[in-house]
């Protein structure tokens, strides 16, 4: 039923279009015949244009040759050159993704927290931003992106050795690629803080995230995007980080919050968000910033980026709307938090698929994400009893899994059952590997952080009075 209206509209448009084309072809009358002079000029100019386009295509081909390509081995590779359109877009995309963390995610989580803990959430997000920026350039980029390992990279680019102003990564300067990926390395650990919010020691948070970043984020990055195990053996598709970012962080969140234990008073005392407008503002910043996340993962400014932006918008809108309708029908009222959460679920699910699906598949992905994540954040969470403060697993973990699997279904939807089945299997494997890897690393990292900090959980006094005043000595609102 939902598809009937667009299908009818399209049929009408195609019919009207075909009518106008037919009449046009018949109308090449005496006014439109070229003179001999016009023809000579046009021939010359069009040939120049075609040659230029051909040259451009060849330049892209020969500068983009892989090192193990036969032509490259015979000396035919040309130096990569800066594409200023791609570069300009990627510099902007980097800023957009940073905005997603500060203040997008910060406000989204900050608003969900109780008033006495708002600063602790903001500080954790900002501190993670600062810390991960440094770790990424010191060793993270190298450990994730360099080398031929199956599971993780090497240290050939430690301290960004060898990267200069002129270094290239495809058609953009490598410095831009480093910073763009840095913003991903920032937001992924920042996502996790939402699960253990309001009851974890700040020192333990920092130590846990350093260990997790090093041993889960960077290796999974390498396995999916650095030519490692998941990319080569399983050809898993993860365009912008459904696996590397969302499943990785979501599973870590689940394990961490279970190991940490529930907040005092959960689930019997109500702990409503202290600032719902913050949550909506944060969600809006995430939505807009996500264009940088998904369309930026095209690493170029062109058709793929454009389509990624389109499907991102469509999937998110579908998810937000669906969550709102589900809530309205089951609970009687559409809530602001529900609308915001639905949007985020859609954003997460479209992330791995944004490079390979079209807008209609995006609608399906958005609807599926909203329904499944709604169930995960409400029924599943209640049934299993874990206290995932801000539903990081329910939205990012589950949404990432839904997105990764549906990518397998829709990425090659025109190419026959066998190819779809193969891709789906590849996606499933990438999900399983990431879930297990992240869970194990999280378990060990929490144990180490606990040992180094004398326990990861805030003491009772701190939890009751609020982390802001006890851990940070500050009041969020001195009104």
């Amino acid at each position: 039923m939902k598809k009937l209206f667009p299908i009818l509209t399209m049929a009408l448009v195609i019919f009207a279009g075909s009518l106008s084309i037919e009449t046009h072809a018949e109308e090449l009358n005496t006014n439109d015949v070229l003179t001999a002079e016009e023809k000579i000029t046009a021939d010359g100019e069009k040939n120049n244009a075609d040659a230029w386009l051909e040259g451009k295509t060849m330049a892209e081909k020969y500068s983009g040759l892989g090192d193990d390509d036969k032509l490259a081995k015979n000396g035919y590779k040309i130096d990569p050159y800066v594409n200023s359109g791609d570069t300009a877009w990627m510099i902007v995309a980097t800023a957009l993704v940073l905005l997603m963390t500060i203040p997008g995610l910060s406000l989204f989580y900050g608003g969900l927290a109780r008033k006495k803990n708002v600063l602790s959430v903001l500080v954790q997000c900002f501190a993670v931003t600062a810390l991960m920026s440094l770790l990424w350039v010191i060793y993270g980029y190298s450990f994730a992106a360099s080398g031929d390992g199956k599971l993780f990279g090497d240290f050939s680019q430690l301290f960004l050795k060898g990267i200069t102003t002129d270094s290239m990564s495809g058609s953009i300067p490598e410095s831009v690629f480093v910073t763009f990926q840095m913003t991903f390395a920032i937001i992924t650990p920042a996502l996790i803080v939402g699960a253990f919010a309001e009851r974890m020691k700040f020192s333990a948070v920092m130590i846990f995230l350093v260990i997790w970043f090093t041993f889960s984020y960077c290796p999974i990055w390498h396995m999916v995007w650095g030519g490692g195990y998941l990319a080569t053996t399983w050809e898993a598709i993860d365009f912008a980080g459904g696996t590397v970012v969302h499943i990785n962080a979501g599973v870590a969140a689940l394990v961490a919050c279970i190991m940490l234990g529930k907040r005092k008073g959960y689930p019997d005392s109500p702990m409503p968000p202290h600032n719902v407008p913050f949550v909506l503002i944060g969600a809006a910043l995430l939505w807009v910033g996500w264009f940088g996340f998904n369309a930026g993962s095209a690493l170029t400014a062109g058709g793929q980026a454009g389509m990624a932006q389109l499907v991102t918008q469509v999937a998110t809108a579908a998810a937000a709307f669906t969550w709102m309708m589900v809530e309205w029908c089951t609970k009687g009222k559409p809530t602001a938090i529900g609308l915001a959460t639905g949007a985020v679920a859609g954003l997460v699910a479209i992330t791995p698929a944004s490079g390979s699906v079209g807008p209609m598949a995006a609608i399906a992905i958005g609807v599926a994400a909203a329904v499944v994540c709604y169930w995960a954040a409400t029924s599943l969470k209640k049934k299993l009893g874990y206290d995932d403060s801000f539903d990081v697993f329910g939205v990012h973990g589950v949404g990432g899994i839904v997105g990764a699997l549906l990518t397998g279904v829709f990425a090659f939807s025109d190419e026959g059952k066998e190819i779809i089945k193969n891709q789906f299997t590849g996606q499933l494997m990438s999900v399983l590997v990431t879930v297990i890897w992240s869970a194990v690393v999280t378990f060990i990292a929490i144990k180490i952080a606990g040992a180094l900090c004398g326990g990861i959980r805030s003491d009772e006094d701190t939890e009751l009075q609020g982390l802001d005043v006890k851990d940070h000595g500050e009041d969020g609102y001195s009104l």
Partner: protein
Amino acid sequence: MKKLEAIIKPFKLEEVKDALAEVGIEGMTVTEVKGFGRQKGHTEIYRGSEYTVDFLPKIKLEVAVTDGNLEAAIKAVADSAKTGKIGDGKIFVSTIDEAIRIRTNEKGDEAV
């Protein structure tokens, strides 16, 4: 001297203030409070979970009056704060031992 403490519905504040002004009472102190009596709370929804909120926002109004003005003040507040529905609030009257105006050191009825 008597002190009136009235718990009223927040949207009634302007009306009560105007009614008190009409009987000659120009000064008062107002606090935002939460409370409940027989008026039940309401349910709110967060991520699919429902929970009851018992405490409702109210306004507490405190005003000191002379013994002569007491009846008029009580009537002014009660009439203007009433809606007829549950949750209209309550008025408490207590005796003040002393009242002093800080600027002039006046005491007693002059200070009220």
